[in-house]
């Protein structure tokens, strides 16, 4: 059954004349990890926020079509209702800290308190989320005293504690150093192993190629392509959409080293090694 169903979604911000999302239709199945790529302004963040109801409920603006996430129609549900089904993590770890709590543990509890989760259950969920994100040892630290990577993992833990069925990550590592970024990706990988459906907007194509099973290429609010990473990254016209394919794909393209029996170039280090060793 599809976790996310989008039908002819069109959206325009109130202050803009241009459509930010232009007639998008697609479905995402349970347990999938979808990468969203495209240049700045292609509509990645807007699409991410359309899954959780911030588009249109927070921004207002003109909205058309239909988005259904795990059975809830976004247009007819409040952001708080949707928060229990789909969680979102934003770019800047710093602005996701509520600033009203004094420990990491309390910070993770924030959403649960708001949504009225009983105390006993709350404690179980926080412990689980902190453990899953490898944050138990920081539970008594002050939220603002964490490093960027730790703060972002805390933000993910706060969302995971709400037990969503879908996790949306909007460029979660763009403001982190390589180490922090790696921490976050490892955490996301673990979540995926738990069966979570993940949507990831990201500029790091190597990571997208490594972790996602399908990639959506956006440009000007339209879907250009939505297929396997190998298929999308093998497109010859990617640079036209402001996307540079993973370095492994670029190397293999130059060497014209395709996988045996496949029309596509390798997209990960392992695949590239395999193909190049065989030559």
């Amino acid at each position, binding site marked *: 059954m599809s976790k996310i169903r989008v039908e002819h979604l069109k959206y325009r911000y109130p202050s803009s004349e241009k459509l930010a999302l232009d007639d998008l239709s697609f479905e995402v199945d349970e347990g999938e990890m979808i990468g969203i790529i495209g240049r700045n302004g292609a509509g990645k963040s807007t699409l991410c926020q359309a899954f959780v109801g911030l588009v249109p409920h927070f921004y207002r603006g003109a909205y058309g079509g239909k988005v259904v996430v795990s059975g809830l129609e976004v247009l007819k549900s409040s*952001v708080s209702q949707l928060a229990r089904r789909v969680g979102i993590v*934003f770019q800047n770890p710093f602005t*996701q800290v509520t600033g009203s709590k*004094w420990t990491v543990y309390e910070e993770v*509890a924030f959403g*649960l308190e*708001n949504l009225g989760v009983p105390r006993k259950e709350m404690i179980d969920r926080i412990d689980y989320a902190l453990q899953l994100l490898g944050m138990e040892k920081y539970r008594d630290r002050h939220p603002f005293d964490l490093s960027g990577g730790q703060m972002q993992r805390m933000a993910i833990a706060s969302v995971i504690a709400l037990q969503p069925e879908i996790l949306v990550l909007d460029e979660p590592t763009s403001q982190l150093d390589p180490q922090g970024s790696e921490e976050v990706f490892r955490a996301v990988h673990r979540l995926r192993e738990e069966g979570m459906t993940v949507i990831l907007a990201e500029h790091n194509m190597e990571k997208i190629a490594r972790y996602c099973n399908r990639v959506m290429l956006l440009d000007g609010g339209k879907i250009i392509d939505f297929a396997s990473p190998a298929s999308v990254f093998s497109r010859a016209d990617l640079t036209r959409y402001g996307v540079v394919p993973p370095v492994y794909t670029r190397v293999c393209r130059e060497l014209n080293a395709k996988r045996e029996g496949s029309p596509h170039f390798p997209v990960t280090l392992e695949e590239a090694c395999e193909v190049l060793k065989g030559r």
Partner: protein
Amino acid sequence: MKTFSLYVPRDSLIHRINPIDKILYTITAIAVPLILPSMAASFLCMLISLSLLAAARVVRQSLPVFAFVFLILCTVVLIQGWFYPGNQTPLFGVEPFVFHAEGLMKACRIGIRVTNVVAAFLLLVLTTKPADLVEELVRRGLSPRIGYVLDSIFQILPQMMNTTRTILDAQRSRGLETEGSLWVRVKAFLPLIVPVVMSSLIHAKERALALEVRGLHFEGQRTWLREKRTYPYSREIRGGLLLVLTASIVWRILG
């Protein structure tokens, strides 16, 4: 972690009292000298507030505040002592700066009242964790959103000051003169305030989004991570304060 809170962690009975009861005490301690204008009443209230500060073992932390207040009170003594309209009995000094008994009495009364108000407020502020107070208020029906704003002030403002400092350093490193004559400072104001305001607005919007998806606007019943705390002597304190207030009103009407 830097914060604006003046709270001093101590293990005293005063610290364990319900924050709401402390607010009620502060209100009573300010109200009684207003109801009973006699110097004795003000003096008594001041003494009680001061001894409670001592009992909470936060006298040292309250000294800087009192020092500042006394500085202002000194000017009150001078002005009232010299120029109080009811001045009749000259005590000492040289014309036209002669201290009068009436003016000094007036200054004394003002001083006691101000000290009383400051001490009563300090008792609340120094012995109460802001988060505890807000939680207690939200449990009693304050909107959780207002509660959030009150809670976050103590952390978001220091963070904004950090941002401001970063921007100040950044602009300086690009050659902006921020020190020197008044004109230099005025010229530096715009290139500083614009990025500060812009970044604050962007941060506020991003934080609003993050809060929204954590259910800040959820309409149902909320819950708390912390168990409801029981505070000692709540009933006795409230009864006592009510008694004192009623007694002073009755006294005023009869007396």
